[in-house]
């Protein structure tokens, strides 16, 4: 059963999505994890466009986990867009990517990323990373504005956005 504030994951690779879902499960993280598979979909979600206008089904996240390398609108474009939205000032954006390139790290911070994590190679490390990350951002970090705790109208068996 999902409860607590929402996390949005923007990731195009199915295997990475499954890895993160399993890591959350193994790490005992029960916050609702919403998934979008492109930069464009991430922007639509955050804007509340189309099906995402239903904020009961698709609440605004407190934390965005963002891959950089996505086809079309990539992670950098999403960061640029978020930076232009005053209403998203307190959204915390953690870049979670395979790239270790210092240029990407610098660019991500320059475009307003809150922090930058390199995806671990193995499952155990991914679980530890997920636990520390959620303990920090959801357990300790203060948000601003009204609470965005999610009260589900129904409990989905699969995550919204999955075909």
């Amino acid at each position, binding site marked *: 059963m999902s409860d607590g504030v929402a996390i949005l994951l923007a990731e195009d690779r199915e295997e990475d999505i499954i890895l993160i879902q399993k890591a959350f499960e193994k790490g005992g993280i029960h916050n609702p994890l919403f998934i979008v598979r492109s930069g464009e979909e991430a922007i639509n979600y955050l804007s509340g466009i189309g099906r995402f206008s239903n904020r009961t089904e698709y609440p605004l996240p407190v934390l965005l986990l963002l891959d950089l390398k996505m086809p079309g609108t990539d992670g950098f474009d999403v960061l640029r867009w978020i930076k232009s939205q005053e209403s998203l*000032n*307190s959204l*915390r954006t953690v870049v979670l990517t395979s790239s*270790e390139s*210092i240029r990407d*790290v*610098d660019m991500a*911070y*320059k475009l307003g990323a*809150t*922090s*930058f*994590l*390199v995806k671990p190679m193995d499952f155990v490390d991914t679980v530890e*990373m997920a636990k*520390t*990350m959620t*303990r*920090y*951002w959801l*357990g*300790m*970090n*203060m*948000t*601003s*504005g009204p609470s965005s705790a999610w009260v589900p109208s129904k409990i989905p068996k699969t995550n919204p956005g999955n075909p």
Partner: protein
Amino acid sequence: MDCKFTIVVAEDDANDRKLLHLALQRNLKPVEIHELTDGIETVEYLKGEGRFKDRIKFPLPDLLIVDLKMPRMDGLQVIDWVRKEPQLARLPIVMLSGSGLDQDVAEAYRLGVNSYIRKPEDFNDFVHKLGVLIDYWMMTESPNTDRIR
């Protein structure tokens, strides 16, 4: 070459500084900590001015932790200053404050703080939270700041 994870902490209250020091010692993390007493000293450190000229002894930090209320230059002013400095603009900053007021949190985010943590009142909770804070930020990739190695 010793490249320890370096944290600069700006805290004006001597008791809070002592507590922070004890909490960091208890955590036994492999970090280098530099403690400063107000915002002006923090800016001097980051600029490498005066006694902070020696970048071997006083390296640029991987993480800056600032209190909100400090004399001469407060935490929000420090954040604002850092974000306008081209070499330092991407430095991760955590505000660690006794204030949990929404307006303070909102303003800190508006100015570009990465994270806002409310200081716990219980010491053991403080030790634990600092441990998580250090674990988290040590896990992240730091942006490239000019480091004299």
